């Protein structure tokens, strides 16, 4: 059994005039000590998936229509808020995208980390403080800075504080929502290395949300590609990078300027992602797909396992038409 199993999750945002289908029937597994990369563009449903695991969806308008989120076999969606609070920040924790807004500006960073220990462990105030100093040291911040406020830290340092908070209780599952997007590349490299070290040390499972395939290549074991709220391709990192099958995945790779080879022209995916309040009937990608046929507009493709562990949602792949 996987540590985290998401089964057929569907989340909608019910608005006054329309219903936004943010996440449609997504299934994912994350094993202990492994990292799953969830890749997609703005509005694909990445963050909604993460927030529903944490039970942090804004409700209303968000509504989980169906599905299960099993953590150690227990369905998080059916859990009472009180029980969820024991898990959140303790067994599952989250690193938010923007370290500038994720920290409380009126508390020192030491206090903010200590708060986690205080809430989840049987620590006295003094002990919690001591533990928080250890955490700061672990993420590479001098312990004497614990009495400083977030605004006194640079972006990279703030993200380290956020990571220290997330890892304070040695969670079994870490959800990282674009943890390095707001950072510069040299700082990003430091943060990614830190997260990798911690994963090895604590055997933490990680769900890494990103749009950067470079980061995925360096940190993930499995990859799920999400488009318009649906998984379009899912497999091990080797399967996705060496043998991408879905036209969207292939398009993503073609859109990135390469550092290794000289490419005269990029091959972008034409058009835009469809409005999630008004999705096409058939394949959600058919409007932008170069290989789309009539069948794609009419029938939603099945989600097929084309080789062990490698799933693709495309009419043109699998069966007889394999090319």
């Amino acid at each position: 059994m996987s540590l985290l199993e998401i089964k057929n999750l569907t989340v909608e945002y019910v608005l006054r005039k329309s219903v936004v289908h943010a996440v449609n029937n997504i299934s994912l597994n994350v094993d202990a000590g492994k990292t799953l990369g969830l890749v997609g563009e703005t509005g694909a449903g990445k963050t909604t998936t993460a927030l529903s695991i944490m039970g942090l969806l804004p409700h209303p308008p968000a509504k989980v229509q169906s599905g299960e989120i099993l953590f150690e076999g227990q369905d998080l969606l059916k859990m009472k808020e009180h029980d969820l609070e024991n898990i959140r920040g303790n067994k599952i924790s989250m690193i938010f995208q923007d370290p500038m807004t994720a920290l409380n500006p009126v508390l020192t960073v030491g206090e903010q980390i200590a708060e986690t220990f205080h809430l989840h462990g049987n620590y006295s105030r003094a002990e919690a403080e001591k533990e928080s100093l250890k955490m700061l040291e672990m993420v590479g911040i001098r312990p004497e800075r614990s009495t400083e406020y977030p605004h006194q830290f640079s972006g990279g340092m703030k993200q380290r504080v956020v990571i220290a908070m997330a890892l304070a209780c040695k969670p079994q599952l870490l959800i990282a929502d674009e943890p390095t997007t707001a950072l510069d590349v040299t700082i990003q490299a430091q943060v990614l290395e830190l997260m990798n070290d911690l994963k090895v040390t604590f055997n933490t499972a990680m769900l890494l949300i990103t749009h950067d395939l470079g980061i995925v290549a360096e940190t993930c074991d499995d990859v799920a590609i999400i488009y318009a709220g649906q998984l379009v391709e899912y497999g091990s990192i080797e399967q996705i990078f060496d043998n991408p099958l879905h036209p969207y995945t292939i398009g993503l790779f073609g859109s990135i300027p390469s550092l290794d080879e000289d490419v005269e022209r990029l091959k972008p995916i034409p058009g835009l992602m469809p409005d999630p309040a008004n999705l096409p009937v058939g394949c959600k990608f058919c409007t932008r797909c170069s290989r789309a046929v009539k069948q794609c507009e009419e029938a939603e493709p099945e989600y097929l396992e084309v080789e062990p562990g490698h799933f693709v949602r495309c009419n043109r792949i699998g069966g007889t038409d394999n090319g």
Partner: protein
Amino acid sequence: MGEILRVEKLSKFFDTPSGSLHAVENVSFSIEQGKTLGVVGESGCGKSTLGRTVLKLIEPTGGKIFFQGKDITNISKKENRALRKDMQIIFQDPFSSLNPRLNVADLIADPLKTFKEHNKKEIEEIVFEMMDLVGLSRRYAYSYPHELDGGRRQRIGIARALALDPKFIVCDEPVSSLDVSIQAQILNLLQDLQEQKRLTYIFVTHDLSVVKHISDDILVMYVGAMVEKCPSKELFAHPLHPYTKGLLSAIPIPNIHHEKVKVKLQGELSSPIEPPDECRFVKRCPYATDICRCKMPDYEEVLPNHFVSCHNCKNINNL
């Protein structure tokens, strides 16, 4: 092809309560017509300030700017205004750089109306011509920016910059706020336009794979100072400055079979406020020696067409 822009020892300092902030210091380069100079660096390294100072959107503190052979450093306001027809800018954020109360046609017509050289009918023609050029469907002419997505908004920004038929454009992170698939569309558009109109670009970005793709030459900046400049291919094949080496190896490569030697950079950028006379990179540099701590290195042509400012460049690279 001739040189279109030359910058000599350009500096821009800002006064702040805690002292003088050296945003750009002693930067020199030249660009030939029809070429692209990429300016890369991390946030706060002065790359945007450089782009804006070159356009004289910000008055330089020191140094000289020559555009088409003419010194434009200290020209009058009137002359400066006339210069706008030849020098334009595309901004980073297509969400905040467009007036929300103007529709697409008015936004693109705005620069044309400013110069009062065309009548109403001509303006309308140019607007539609620009929309076709940047790949904006004519049916959006009367839409407002908030109705459009980031990619289309950035196309408006490009159309606005092109409306006056400029020769030189500063692109200030034009694709950073866009998704990869849209980013590729805009990069292709910029390349096509350059070919059609022989445009010259300064392309400011923090994304090294983008800059490699689009630039002929690359200038690497670090805390206001230039550290390395050379042709794009040369920079990626043989980076000479320790910072460039660290920067390049920090980029995550979307290829799982790619093995690279990691040059790790510790620490963070030093402060640009009242910097001491030392190499700006000294605190993070693994090769730092005594001379690095007491003198800012000069900018030297170490190899043909390859400029580096580093005291120990020759030793580090066995040249």
